[in-house]
């Protein structure tokens, strides 16, 4: 089977592999998530009601405030955390949160990554080499 690779300009964190949860929508841990149940809870979010736990989130851009800088670390301590965050663009807060929580993150692609990755696809994220691969 052929493999498709998408390269990111910004990357950090460990290499991970898992199912992609994809939407052309934004991301903020405070605004969008029920961090107790591990689901998207903002009614207007395109992933409302879906579990993010253990998923490689593929979204458009960072939204909202600064709380995500703490919340990724907090969610990871309870194992209720996305496996990786892959976005067309991020703000400093997501990067700072990924750095504290040691969560894999990629951002900045030549294509719209939310259109390139099918929802539910098995993907590998390799920040050291700066790419996402469809398996």
């Amino acid at each position, binding site marked *: 089977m052929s493999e498709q690779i998408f390269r990111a300009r910004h990357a950090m964190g460990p290499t991970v592999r898992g199912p992609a949860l994809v939407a052309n929508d934004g991301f903020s841990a405070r*605004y969008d998530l029920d961090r*107790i149940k591990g689901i998207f809870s903002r009614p207007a979010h395109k992933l409302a009601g879906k579990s993010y736990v253990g998923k490689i989130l593929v979204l458009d851009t960072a939204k909202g405030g*600064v709380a995500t800088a*703490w919340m990724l670390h907090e969610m990871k301590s309870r194992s209720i955390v996305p496996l990786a965050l892959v976005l067309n663009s991020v703000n400093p807060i997501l990067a700072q*949160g990924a750095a504290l929580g040691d969560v894999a993150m990629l951002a900045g692609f030549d294509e719209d990554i939310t259109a390139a990755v099918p929802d539910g696809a098995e993907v590998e994220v390799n920040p050291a080499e700066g790419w996402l691969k469809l398996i």
Partner: protein
Amino acid sequence: MKLNDEEQDILAGKAGSLPQQALQHQIKVGDFFGAKDLVPVTQAHIMADTESLGEAGVQWLEGLAATTEGQRRVRIPTITDPRGTDFAKADLLGQTSAMLDLERRAIAAFEKLGVAMTNTCINYQTIQPPTRDEHTAFGDTGVVIYANSVCGARSNFEGGPSALSAGLTGRTPRYGFHLPEQRRGTVRIQVDHTPSSLNGWGALGGVIGRLAGNYWAVPVIEGFEGAPRSDQLKHFGASMASFGSIALYHLAGLTPEATRLSDIADTNLPVHRVTKADVEALQKSYHTDDTVDVVVFSAPQLSLYELGDLASLCDGRKFSVPMLAVTSPQVKPDSDRIGYTARIEAAGGHVLSGMCFYQSYAREISEARGWRRLATNSAKLVNILGGYGYRPMLASMEACVDAAVSGRLVRT
């Protein structure tokens, strides 16, 4: 990232383990964004409510605070965003002793690190506004966008761990809005009216935030009549930052870097028109019910002038549903002394201090108190609270006070 001699010593641990750990974090973030070096900062502002921190975050702070005395203090003025409670009003909010214990532990850790517990998201009104070109490490998006746009200072969004790191090292990675080229306008917005109400300013900020779309966008806004007041730009910026993650805007002819449009934007930028109808549509989209369980004025914390306006609206009224007004610990004593607090309380309202509603376990408050239908004049607050299970509604301060009396929010 290029480090000078002092920074290399910090990284080698010669200044202690805390600055070393802080610099390692900053290098990780700086490398991610391609920062070439670090820039000295004069002040830091830390967002660290315990709902965000959780047990894990508080333990992390306590680990830092356990460092030997004399090796653990911040090296520049470092202050805090609102806490997760007003201890004096915790019963009103239905908060548990576990929440309060976590808050006390976080405060104790911060104090050991030399952080000043100002507990405010309006430090540009109450502590010390930054000056033009002053490099800072501010947390709270509302603080950053006001500092960058209205004051002409230079800051990125610095989340709690990064703002604390800046406090410990006295510097931050030089990327984003520390760079002059990043501060140029990317989109022109032409407005057809100048709002008068705070909710109107917030709603306009929300429309522009959605339109601009992401952190790296810099809207240049034209068409306002007169000079906006600080509270108006407070709501405008906080909402724009909330809806769009925007950290900097320019008002042509008004804000410090935008004396002339050509100073901050290419004339061939795309122009988007934002109309009064766009703003009203955003407000109406949140008006999903006619009854309210609670009225909240918060996000950002209220200035003394806002509390004065609120006190005037409360005179001679009697509330049938809870009404909460949240301010900073710097403003509250003046509100008490001048008599605003007493006038609000005489109507049955509550003045809380040092917290912000959405940073105070909003989901648990809703469940404990049965508050779901919430009226506010803060566009930022309505944008946040949907994810916490509320049905937030945006209206003027006058309409919100009326709703606190009658329990019904009149459609406008």
